[in-house]
Protein backbone atom coordinates (compact mmCIF):
# COMPACT_ATOMS: atom_id res chain seq x y z
CA UNK A 1 0.00 0.00 0.00
CA UNK A 2 1.16 3.47 -0.75
CA UNK A 3 1.60 5.89 2.05
CA UNK A 4 -1.63 7.88 2.49
CA UNK A 5 0.31 10.75 4.01
CA UNK A 6 1.92 13.23 1.67
CA UNK A 7 5.63 13.77 2.10
CA UNK A 8 6.44 16.86 4.20
CA UNK A 9 6.71 20.10 2.19
CA UNK A 10 5.72 18.34 -1.01
CA UNK A 11 2.11 19.50 -1.09
CA UNK A 12 0.17 20.85 -4.01
CA UNK A 13 1.15 24.37 -2.93
CA UNK A 14 4.63 23.94 -4.32
CA UNK A 15 3.45 22.53 -7.61
CA UNK A 16 1.15 25.46 -8.25
CA UNK A 17 3.72 28.13 -7.49
CA UNK A 18 4.32 30.33 -10.51
CA UNK A 19 6.14 33.53 -11.27
CA UNK A 20 3.02 35.20 -12.64
CA UNK A 21 2.87 37.87 -9.94
CA UNK A 22 6.57 38.62 -10.37
CA UNK A 23 6.11 39.15 -14.10
CA UNK A 24 3.03 41.26 -13.40
CA UNK A 25 5.02 43.41 -11.00
CA UNK A 26 7.81 43.81 -13.56
CA UNK A 27 5.34 44.52 -16.38
CA UNK A 28 3.82 47.40 -14.38
CA UNK A 29 7.22 49.06 -14.12
CA UNK A 30 8.33 48.50 -17.73
CA UNK A 31 4.99 49.42 -19.32
CA UNK A 32 4.68 52.36 -16.91
CA UNK A 33 8.01 53.77 -18.01
CA UNK A 34 7.08 53.50 -21.71
CA UNK A 35 3.61 54.94 -21.02
CA UNK A 36 5.13 58.02 -19.36
CA UNK A 37 6.48 59.02 -22.79
CA UNK A 38 3.54 57.81 -24.90
CA UNK A 39 0.75 59.23 -22.71
CA UNK A 40 2.39 62.51 -21.68
CA UNK A 41 3.29 63.09 -25.35
CA UNK A 42 -0.28 62.31 -26.35
CA UNK A 43 -1.75 64.64 -23.71
CA UNK A 44 0.63 67.45 -24.66
CA UNK A 45 -0.16 67.19 -28.37
CA UNK A 46 -3.92 66.76 -27.95
CA UNK A 47 -4.61 69.19 -25.11
CA UNK A 48 -1.97 71.90 -25.20
CA UNK A 49 -0.14 72.17 -28.54
CA UNK A 50 -1.49 74.38 -31.31
CA UNK A 51 -4.95 75.16 -29.85
CA UNK A 52 -5.35 71.94 -27.87
CA UNK A 53 -8.65 70.09 -27.87
CA UNK A 54 -10.41 72.90 -29.76
CA UNK A 55 -8.73 71.93 -33.04
CA UNK A 56 -9.55 68.21 -32.88
CA UNK A 57 -12.07 66.84 -35.35
CA UNK A 58 -12.39 64.01 -37.87
CA UNK A 59 -10.03 65.68 -40.34
CA UNK A 60 -7.40 66.05 -37.62
CA UNK A 61 -7.59 62.33 -36.79
CA UNK A 62 -7.47 61.43 -40.50
CA UNK A 63 -4.33 63.54 -40.91
CA UNK A 64 -2.60 61.87 -37.96
CA UNK A 65 -3.49 58.30 -38.85
CA UNK A 66 -2.23 58.78 -42.41
CA UNK A 67 1.19 58.39 -40.79
CA UNK A 68 2.34 54.93 -39.65
CA UNK A 69 4.30 56.65 -36.88
CA UNK A 70 1.14 57.83 -35.09
CA UNK A 71 -0.65 54.55 -35.83
CA UNK A 72 2.11 52.63 -34.06
CA UNK A 73 2.17 55.24 -31.28
CA UNK A 74 -1.57 54.98 -30.65
CA UNK A 75 -1.67 51.19 -30.98
CA UNK A 76 1.20 50.75 -28.48
CA UNK A 77 -0.46 53.20 -26.12
CA UNK A 78 -3.81 51.40 -26.38
CA UNK A 79 -2.40 47.97 -25.59
CA UNK A 80 0.07 49.04 -22.91
CA UNK A 81 -2.35 51.38 -21.13
CA UNK A 82 -5.21 48.87 -21.02
CA UNK A 83 -2.99 45.98 -19.92
CA UNK A 84 -1.29 48.21 -17.32
CA UNK A 85 -4.66 49.53 -16.11
CA UNK A 86 -6.26 46.08 -16.27
CA UNK A 87 -3.53 44.58 -14.12
CA UNK A 88 -3.86 47.47 -11.67
CA UNK A 89 -7.61 46.86 -11.46
CA UNK A 90 -6.97 43.13 -10.94
CA UNK A 91 -4.71 43.97 -7.98
CA UNK A 92 -7.35 46.28 -6.51
CA UNK A 93 -10.13 43.67 -6.90
CA UNK A 94 -7.90 41.06 -5.23
CA UNK A 95 -7.27 43.50 -2.38
CA UNK A 96 -10.79 44.68 -1.65
CA UNK A 97 -13.28 42.01 -2.81
CA UNK A 98 -13.30 39.58 0.07
CA UNK A 99 -15.82 36.93 -1.06
CA UNK A 100 -14.45 34.36 -3.52
CA UNK A 101 -17.52 34.64 -5.75
CA UNK A 102 -17.42 38.44 -5.83
CA UNK A 103 -13.72 38.43 -6.63
CA UNK A 104 -14.15 35.89 -9.40
CA UNK A 105 -17.03 37.67 -11.16
CA UNK A 106 -15.52 41.13 -10.82
CA UNK A 107 -12.35 39.84 -12.48
CA UNK A 108 -14.33 38.10 -15.22
CA UNK A 109 -16.13 41.38 -15.90
CA UNK A 110 -12.79 43.19 -15.94
CA UNK A 111 -11.11 40.70 -18.31
CA UNK A 112 -14.01 40.57 -20.75
CA UNK A 113 -14.56 44.35 -20.88
CA UNK A 114 -10.83 45.06 -21.20
CA UNK A 115 -10.48 42.51 -24.01
CA UNK A 116 -13.44 44.07 -25.85
CA UNK A 117 -12.02 47.60 -25.54
CA UNK A 118 -8.55 46.48 -26.72
CA UNK A 119 -10.10 44.63 -29.68
CA UNK A 120 -12.33 47.58 -30.58
CA UNK A 121 -9.48 50.10 -30.40
CA UNK A 122 -7.21 47.86 -32.48
CA UNK A 123 -9.94 47.36 -35.07
CA UNK A 124 -10.53 51.11 -35.30
CA UNK A 125 -6.85 51.90 -35.87
CA UNK A 126 -6.41 49.15 -38.48
CA UNK A 127 -9.65 49.72 -40.40
CA UNK A 128 -9.79 53.53 -40.26
CA UNK A 129 -11.09 54.93 -43.54
CA UNK A 130 -10.46 58.67 -44.10
CA UNK A 131 -12.96 58.82 -46.98
CA UNK A 132 -15.88 57.40 -44.96
CA UNK A 133 -19.30 59.07 -44.94
Amino acid at each position, binding site marked *: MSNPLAAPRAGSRNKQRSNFELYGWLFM*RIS*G*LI*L*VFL*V*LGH*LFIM*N*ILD*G*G*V*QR*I*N*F*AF*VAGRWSSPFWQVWDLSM*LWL*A*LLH*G*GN*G*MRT*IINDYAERDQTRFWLKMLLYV*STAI*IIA*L*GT*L*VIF*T*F*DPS*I*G
Partner: protein
Amino acid sequence: MAITTPGRSLRATPIGTLYRGGEGMWTWVLQRITGVSVFFFLFVHVLDTALVRVSPAAYDEIIATYKTPIVNLLEVGLVGAVLFHAFNGIRIILIDFWSKGPRYQRQMTWVIAAIWLFVMIPGTYFMMIHTIDALFGSTT
Protein backbone atom coordinates in the same frame (compact mmCIF):
# COMPACT_ATOMS: atom_id res chain seq x y z
CA MET B 1 15.72 57.20 20.63
CA ALA B 2 18.57 55.56 18.88
CA ILE B 3 16.74 54.61 15.72
CA THR B 4 15.26 58.02 14.93
CA THR B 5 17.11 60.20 12.51
CA PRO B 6 18.78 63.11 14.35
CA GLY B 7 16.93 66.36 13.89
CA ARG B 8 13.59 64.78 13.11
CA SER B 9 10.91 64.85 15.74
CA LEU B 10 9.04 61.70 16.69
CA ARG B 11 6.14 61.12 14.35
CA ALA B 12 3.24 58.70 14.17
CA THR B 13 4.86 56.88 11.25
CA PRO B 14 6.85 53.85 12.39
CA ILE B 15 10.46 54.17 11.32
CA GLY B 16 11.57 51.81 8.62
CA THR B 17 8.21 51.29 6.91
CA LEU B 18 7.43 52.72 3.55
CA TYR B 19 3.72 52.21 3.07
CA ARG B 20 2.38 52.71 6.61
CA GLY B 21 1.47 56.30 7.35
CA GLY B 22 2.90 59.53 6.03
CA GLU B 23 3.94 60.28 2.44
CA GLY B 24 4.50 56.63 1.55
CA MET B 25 0.92 55.67 2.38
CA TRP B 26 -0.87 58.70 0.97
CA THR B 27 0.97 58.56 -2.36
CA TRP B 28 0.01 54.85 -2.51
CA VAL B 29 -3.66 55.77 -1.92
CA LEU B 30 -3.50 58.53 -4.56
CA GLN B 31 -1.78 56.17 -7.02
CA ARG B 32 -4.77 53.81 -6.74
CA ILE B 33 -7.42 56.55 -6.98
CA THR B 34 -5.79 58.24 -10.00
CA GLY B 35 -5.15 54.85 -11.64
CA VAL B 36 -8.77 53.71 -11.37
CA SER B 37 -10.06 57.10 -12.58
CA VAL B 38 -7.79 57.10 -15.62
CA PHE B 39 -8.70 53.46 -16.40
CA PHE B 40 -12.43 54.30 -16.53
CA PHE B 41 -11.74 57.33 -18.70
CA LEU B 42 -9.71 55.09 -21.02
CA PHE B 43 -12.80 52.95 -21.70
CA VAL B 44 -14.84 56.05 -22.54
CA HIS B 45 -12.04 57.46 -24.68
CA VAL B 46 -11.65 54.31 -26.82
CA LEU B 47 -15.44 54.26 -27.30
CA ASP B 48 -15.65 57.93 -28.37
CA THR B 49 -12.69 57.53 -30.72
CA ALA B 50 -14.36 54.44 -32.22
CA LEU B 51 -16.97 56.81 -33.69
CA VAL B 52 -14.47 57.67 -36.46
CA ARG B 53 -15.60 54.32 -37.89
CA VAL B 54 -19.25 55.44 -37.85
CA SER B 55 -19.11 58.84 -39.54
CA PRO B 56 -17.17 62.11 -39.41
CA ALA B 57 -20.32 63.85 -38.12
CA ALA B 58 -20.77 61.38 -35.25
CA TYR B 59 -17.12 61.82 -34.23
CA ASP B 60 -17.20 65.61 -34.49
CA GLU B 61 -20.36 65.69 -32.39
CA ILE B 62 -18.87 63.69 -29.51
CA ILE B 63 -15.61 65.65 -29.68
CA ALA B 64 -17.63 68.88 -29.41
CA THR B 65 -18.54 67.88 -25.84
CA TYR B 66 -14.81 67.76 -25.00
CA LYS B 67 -14.62 71.45 -25.99
CA THR B 68 -17.31 72.67 -23.57
CA PRO B 69 -16.18 74.57 -20.42
CA ILE B 70 -17.16 71.90 -17.87
CA VAL B 71 -15.62 68.97 -19.74
CA ASN B 72 -12.59 71.17 -20.45
CA LEU B 73 -12.19 71.53 -16.68
CA LEU B 74 -12.51 67.75 -16.26
CA GLU B 75 -9.69 67.36 -18.81
CA VAL B 76 -7.46 69.45 -16.54
CA GLY B 77 -8.36 67.04 -13.73
CA LEU B 78 -7.56 64.08 -15.97
CA VAL B 79 -4.17 65.53 -16.93
CA GLY B 80 -3.48 66.26 -13.25
CA ALA B 81 -4.33 62.66 -12.33
CA VAL B 82 -2.21 61.19 -15.16
CA LEU B 83 0.73 63.46 -14.29
CA PHE B 84 0.64 62.47 -10.63
CA HIS B 85 0.32 58.78 -11.54
CA ALA B 86 3.27 59.06 -13.94
CA PHE B 87 5.57 61.01 -11.61
CA ASN B 88 4.74 58.85 -8.59
CA GLY B 89 5.21 55.77 -10.78
CA ILE B 90 8.76 56.90 -11.53
CA ARG B 91 9.24 57.46 -7.79
CA ILE B 92 8.06 53.87 -7.12
CA ILE B 93 10.47 52.52 -9.74
CA LEU B 94 13.30 54.46 -8.08
CA ILE B 95 12.31 53.09 -4.65
CA ASP B 96 12.32 49.54 -6.04
CA PHE B 97 15.43 49.62 -8.22
CA TRP B 98 17.68 52.44 -6.95
CA SER B 99 19.70 51.36 -3.92
CA LYS B 100 19.14 54.74 -2.21
CA GLY B 101 15.51 54.97 -3.33
CA PRO B 102 13.86 53.88 -0.06
CA ARG B 103 16.03 56.32 1.91
CA TYR B 104 15.00 59.27 -0.25
CA GLN B 105 11.34 58.31 -0.84
CA ARG B 106 10.06 61.17 1.32
CA GLN B 107 12.19 63.76 -0.43
CA MET B 108 11.17 62.32 -3.80
CA THR B 109 7.50 62.83 -2.83
CA TRP B 110 8.09 66.56 -2.42
CA VAL B 111 10.15 66.69 -5.61
CA ILE B 112 7.31 65.16 -7.64
CA ALA B 113 4.81 67.50 -5.94
CA ALA B 114 6.94 70.46 -7.00
CA ILE B 115 7.33 69.20 -10.59
CA TRP B 116 3.58 68.51 -10.73
CA LEU B 117 2.79 72.11 -9.74
CA PHE B 118 5.46 73.45 -12.11
CA VAL B 119 3.82 71.60 -15.03
CA MET B 120 0.18 72.01 -14.00
CA ILE B 121 0.15 75.80 -13.58
CA PRO B 122 1.10 76.66 -17.19
CA GLY B 123 -0.60 73.45 -18.37
CA THR B 124 -3.96 74.48 -16.91
CA TYR B 125 -3.62 77.90 -18.49
CA PHE B 126 -2.88 76.57 -21.98
CA MET B 127 -5.54 73.86 -21.75
CA MET B 128 -8.22 76.34 -20.72
CA ILE B 129 -7.17 79.41 -22.69
CA HIS B 130 -10.06 79.04 -25.12
CA THR B 131 -12.63 78.43 -22.34
CA ILE B 132 -11.33 81.41 -20.32
CA ASP B 133 -11.52 83.52 -23.46
CA ALA B 134 -15.05 82.35 -24.30
CA LEU B 135 -16.37 82.89 -20.78
CA PHE B 136 -14.57 86.04 -19.69
CA GLY B 137 -12.87 87.48 -22.75
CA SER B 138 -13.95 90.77 -24.26
CA THR B 139 -13.47 89.41 -27.77
CA THR B 140 -15.31 86.29 -28.82
